[in-house]
């Protein structure tokens, strides 16, 4: 018999290494993957539909729930999109705080990636260390917003509130100790022969294929394509910060690992600059139609009471038009396409989530490789299924 026999199996949706509910239908020839077909949608909750029935400010919490590892990156993209439609800009202090917290979010998100990716490949201890540091970042979220994960701290027009007392000290002590901790993780992995064996040359994708498939973020930069939206189309004042773009050469799992480790160091540098150059001033725009008046004013001024009442009952209206705003989230290009018909609710919001697009390249990376490599490859694209399915 010369006919090759293949076997079709299901991986997921309940598989610990798929980082959520991802189902892959695999056609196997022995241990080699002949065909890999992702099936998604298990976490689809119709966020775009729901957003159409919410007022503009009420959409912010929905964005948290998409990429729950980097809620603030999503908040930022949405706030910037609405602000662009309104034709306003957040005050300088709010912009710097946004940059600082988005970069802390990037570190936190990369730490979860590092821990889970390492545990997938069999390095247990990195997971425990990475989550220790991530805990410190979640504590910071809690300090600024009261919530550890779904922070909704960035609002249209600025921030929920100014930084609490002592916050700068917390951040300062974190960025003082974190680079050494990162060096410890690198000691465990970067030159570890088993880690290298499992990751180098695995899941390779060529730069032209990656661009064709819309891959973005660290996974794209690992192929040698120098594209970081913070550099190419800066937003929220990123042009004032000095940092380097991560860059890989081989487009394999190992280079994606190196890129993210590099990015965490750069994020620390950005956070440090933000702390040093943190300007004073308000954290919200001075527009009573967007931002509720301070509480004491409501008791003194009739206009303030009316503004307050209108904001909480009707929200604010946004001029008719459409904008596209994207930010560099920890996973890649997170874009918001926002259409307004001039009312107080979005006519249409589309969330261009990096995980959804990046997942398309999984079959290209996995086909022809061993089943055991698949786990390493899924980890290396760093998907969040909440964001894939929305």
């Amino acid at each position: 018999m010369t006919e090759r026999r293949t076997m079709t199996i299901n991986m997921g949706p309940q598989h610990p290494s798929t980082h959520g509910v991802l189902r892959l239908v695999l056609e196997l020839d022995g241990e080699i993957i002949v065909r890999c077909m992702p099936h998604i949608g298990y976490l689809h909750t119709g966020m775009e539909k729901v957003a159409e029935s919410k007022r503009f400010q009420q959409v912010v919490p929905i964005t948290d729930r998409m990429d729950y590892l980097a809620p603030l990156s999503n908040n930022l993209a949405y706030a910037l999109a609405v602000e662009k439609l309104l034709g306003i800009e957040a005050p300088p202090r709010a912009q710097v705080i946004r940059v600082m917290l988005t970069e802390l979010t990037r570190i936190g998100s990369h730490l979860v990636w590092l821990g889970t990716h390492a545990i997938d490949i069999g390095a247990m201890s990195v997971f425990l260390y990475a989550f220790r540091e991530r805990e410190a970042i979640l504590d910071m979220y809690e300090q600024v917003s009261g919530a550890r994960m779904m922070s909704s701290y960035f609002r249209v027009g600025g921030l929920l509130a100014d930084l609490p007392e002592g916050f700068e000290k917390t951040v300062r002590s974190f960025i003082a100790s974190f680079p050494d901790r990162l060096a410890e993780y690198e000691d465990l992995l970067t030159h570890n022969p088993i880690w290298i064996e499992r990751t180098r040359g695995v899941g390779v994708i060529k730069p032209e294929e990656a661009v064709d498939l819309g891959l973005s973020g660290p996974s794209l930069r690992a192929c040698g394509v120098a594209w970081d939206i913070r550099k190419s189309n800066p937003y929220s004042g990123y042009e004032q910060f000095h940092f380097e773009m991560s860059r890989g050469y081989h487009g394999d799992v190992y280079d994606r690992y190196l890129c993210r480790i590099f990015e965490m160091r750069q994020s620390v540098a950005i956070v440090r600059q933000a702390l040093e150059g943190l300007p004073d001033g308000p954290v919200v725009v001075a527009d009573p139609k967007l931002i509720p008046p301070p509480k004491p004013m409501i008791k003194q001024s009739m206009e303030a009471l009316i503004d307050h009442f209108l904001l909480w009952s009707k929200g604010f209206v946004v001029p008719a038009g459409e904008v596209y705003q994207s930010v560099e989230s920890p996973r890649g290009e997170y874009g918001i396409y926002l259409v307004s018909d001039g009312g107080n609710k979005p006519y249409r919001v589309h969330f261009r989530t990096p995980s959804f697009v990046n997942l398309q390249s999984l079959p290209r990376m996995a086909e022809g490789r061993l089943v055991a490599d698949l786990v390493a490859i899924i980890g290396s694209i760093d998907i969040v299924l909440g964001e894939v399915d929305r």
Partner: protein
Amino acid sequence: MGHVKGAEENLTVSKLREWFPDATFSTKDFRNETTLLIRSGDLIRICRYLKEDPGLLYDFLSDLTAVDRLGDHPRFEVVYHLYSLQYTQRIRLKVQVGEGEAVPSVTSVWGAADWHEREVFDMFGICFEGHPDLRRILMPEEWEGFPLRKDYPVQAAPKWWEEGATSD
């Protein structure tokens, strides 16, 4: 983001006018973003040109989605967000399509369009001609209706659920 400077913006539009004198399209500038409304018959050749022209190189399909303008004719707009990695420019293309009509698939120009077009099909019921594998992507295969259409209710239970609930 998407800040198209005056000179570059004219470059894309003027190049298109020069190369496609027979194509009709309209442009709109809003908040430093340029939108080109084109006919679906011109879509593929314009997309291929925008991707390959050495002075434009829109090689990255950032996003592809649709808007339901219920009450307008044609009803839907399919929206393409293109990005040039080389020139860091963005441009938005729009194609209008009526209910039951199809749009040519751009999967032959950008591989990334594959899942995007499946999502638009899934959510709006817009068909893409020439798509290699057009089927639902987020909703279950047997799902009826297209959730992101404006005449689809925000809160509605599927038929099997309703039937199950009343049969007790």
